[in-house]
């Protein structure tokens, strides 16, 4: 990793890159305006699972790519948790070599079609873009371009498979097949390891499958990328709960030399207020799992889901936005977000909030539920809500909500989705008593190496961070792979 700067410099001095840079003056490039993502019309999409963002056309992509000035010191890369060679892939798009662009992405990112869709680029690569940092202008649409290149490759059917080293005969196990585990598996396969992913559910992909809905991330897109990993030699075993189906010790005896725990933060939090166990009140994990993983909205599938007419979602994160927009697609007449802070403090991506608003979601900010009221059959019918005001900033820097005395009132609701956060999944810590765990239930790892208190067990993603993002989980997976490689070579 020490020669990464030299490597980038060398790549940048490639003849084709020099030629492209000379082809247009920087002034011409910076005069262009950022592309707008084409979207399905709000009224149509709000009742269907069609993907909201429709993707760029080749012309749009080439135009947007030519905005990038191919900086000598590309700050964007430092904003990317998996360190994609951003100028190289973008310049490949500019010259029309879309498949080379896709190949560049795969050098460092196992799931580019996923990341191009769900990364909060505005806080990462695009926040570090020259346009943003030096010119205070709209950054190059790196995320849209990443998605364009990955989709182009997927639609052509010719998927490039990254080169893998000769098999070294060492077996490693990955606990969980979410973004952290998949990124880890991709890199370990490249190093030549015999990688086995063990997944508790019946589908590979973790939150990419059960959590993020089709209208943001089609499952088919995830499956193509999983297939690439399979072609690299990664083996997948579903319906396998490490710690229950077999313990880490048993797996060691079966010849596994290293373990990466990427089991995520899948334990939903509830607010523990009166009436929360009434029928019709469910966690966003349950709601989204029924629809996304179990296909509850599709005819002929056995799993049912609550189809409320008046659905209220509690919370302000991306999961809350996914839930409330799912409610509309399940046929709700009215879908409302209740969030205890104001719109500015919402942790959801600005784009998701905008999409939800366009689709007709109502936002009841600075409000908080304090009690649920049910009918004689035990089904929720009303929520007692309390108004809030913003007080002093808390430790995270957000202003904390303070209840307004005497402001309680009642609203109607027939279905409530609680989306107030998740905690780390306790199954692995429960089965490994020697594993050092923080008081929040996250696994304690070395910040550099991602090694846990048990030497052959590494961990990353939400099980270490609590609820975070897909791309941070993938970054952890990559770093853990590099350090486990080093650890196993030293054995």
């Amino acid at each position, binding site marked *: 990793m020490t020669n990464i700067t030299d490597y980038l410099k060398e790549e940048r001095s490639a003849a084709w890159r020099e030629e492209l840079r000379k082809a247009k003056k920087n002034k011409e490039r910076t005069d262009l305006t950022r592309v707008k993502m084409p979207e399905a019309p709000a009224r149509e999409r709000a009742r269907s699972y069609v993907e909201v963002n429709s993707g760029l056309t080749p012309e749009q992509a080439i135009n947007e790519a030519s905005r990038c000035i191919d900086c000598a010191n590309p700050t964007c890369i430092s904003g990317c948790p998996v360190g994609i060679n951003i100028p190289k892939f973008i310049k490949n798009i500019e010259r029309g070599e879309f498949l080379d662009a896709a190949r560049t992405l795969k050098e460092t990112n196992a799931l580019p079609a996923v990341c191009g869709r769900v990364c909060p680029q505005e806080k990462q690569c695009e926040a570090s873009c020259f346009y943003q940092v030096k010119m205070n202008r709209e950054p190059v649409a790196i995320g849209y371009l990443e998605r364009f290149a990955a989709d182009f490759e997927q639609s052509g059917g010719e998927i490039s498979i990254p080169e893998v080293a000769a098999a070294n005969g060492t077996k490693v196990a990955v606990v969980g097949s979410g973004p952290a585990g998949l990124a880890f598996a991709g890199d370990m396969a490249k190093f030549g390891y015999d990688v086995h992913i063990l997944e*508790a*559910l*019946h589908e590979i992909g973790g939150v990419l499958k*059960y959590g993020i809905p089709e209208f943001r991330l089609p499952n088919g897109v995830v499956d193509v990328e999983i297939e690439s990993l399979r072609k690299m030699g990664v083996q997948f075993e*579903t*319906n*396998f*709960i490490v710690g*229950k*189906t*077999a313990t880490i010790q048993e797996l060691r005896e079966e010849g596994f030399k290293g373990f990466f725990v990427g089991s995520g933060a*899948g*334990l*939903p939090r*509830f607010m*523990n207020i009166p009436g*929360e*166990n*009434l*029928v*019709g009140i*469910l*966690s966003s*994990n*349950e709601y989204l*799992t*029924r629809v996304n993983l*179990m*296909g509850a909205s599709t005819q*002929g*599938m*056995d*799993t*049912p*889901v*609550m189809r409320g007419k008046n659905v209220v979602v509690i919370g302000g994160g991306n999961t809350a936005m996914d839930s409330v927009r799912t409610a509309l697609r399940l046929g709700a007449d009215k879908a409302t977000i209740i969030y205890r802070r104001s719109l500015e403090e919402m942790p959801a991506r600005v784009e998701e909030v905008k999409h939800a608003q366009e689709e007709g979601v109502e936002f009841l900010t600075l409000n908080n539920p304090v009690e649920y009221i049910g009918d004689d*059959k*035990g*089904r929720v019918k009303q929520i007692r809500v309390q108004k809030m005001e913003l007080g002093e900033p808390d430790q995270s820097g957000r202003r904390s909500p303070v209840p307004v005395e005497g402001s309680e009132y009642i609203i109607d609701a027939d279905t409530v989705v609680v989306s107030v956060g998740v905690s780390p*999944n*306790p*199954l692995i810590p429960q089965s490994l008593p020697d594993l050092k765990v923080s008081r929040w239930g996250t696994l304690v790892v070395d910040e550099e190496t991602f090694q846990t208190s048990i030497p052959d067990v590494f961990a990353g993603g939400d099980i270490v961070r609590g609820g975070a993002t897909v791309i941070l989980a993938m970054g952890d997976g990559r770093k853990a792979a590099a350090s486990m490689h080093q650890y196993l070579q030293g054995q």
Partner: protein
Amino acid sequence: MNKVVSKQHFSENVVSLEIEAPRIAKARKAGHFVMVRTDEKGERIPLTISSADTAKGTITLVIQKVGVTSRKLTALEPGEFIHDMVGPLGQATHVENFGTVLACGGGVGVAPLLPIVEALKKAGNRVVSVIAARSKDLIILEDQIRAYSDEVVIMTDDGSYGQKGLVTEGMEQIIQREKIDQSVIIGPGIMMKFASMTTKKHNIPTIVSLNTIMVDGTGMCGACRVSVGGKTRFVCVDGPEFDAHEVDFDEMLMRLNGYKNEEKEADDAYNCQVDKK
């Protein structure tokens, strides 16, 4: 994996399937359950493991036809497969030598009760079992329960076998007769509610194994949540066994009915489909 090796009919609506699952057979303990999905369109449902054969690498599940998924499962024949099966899940039963244990099973609840009775007997307890059902043909696993019990009392609602009466009446007879140190009750929610009231009245420590709605079975969603001692607990990871006298049975029964309409619709649609064949 998950091949049905043998099948036994207990009654018209209750079958026992022996299924290939070497890892689960090896890891499971009394009280554990599995989640199964019949086919690609199937839902995930929880089923308690009623016995296992580590040498053969199989587990046995007892299934009663009540809706779409259980119909699909009971229709499986040896040689066919269950698409997905994961486990063992939940916390194992706490087993020790309590002294005298009163074990009560209602309907198909006798199947999950069996491994617990076996473990309790092997731990040195005197075990008195009460098994109850609506009628004679719904009494299952009687011989197996007898094998690990010092005494078995059978109760049927219609008196077609054993004594006529409810499970609670059988329990009262035993409790009046001798000192009971511990009780374990498994059956339909309503039966567990009333049986628990009986042991509470006599201050007998009691555990119940709850069978709530589940989706993933790994603690991910909270569909299975119940109130125990005023706190919300997840049956799939904190249970399925809890202190019977702390469980809010009314809330549990209410939540079990949460999808009644959807379940009926699915069942009607399935029947319609089967009729057409």
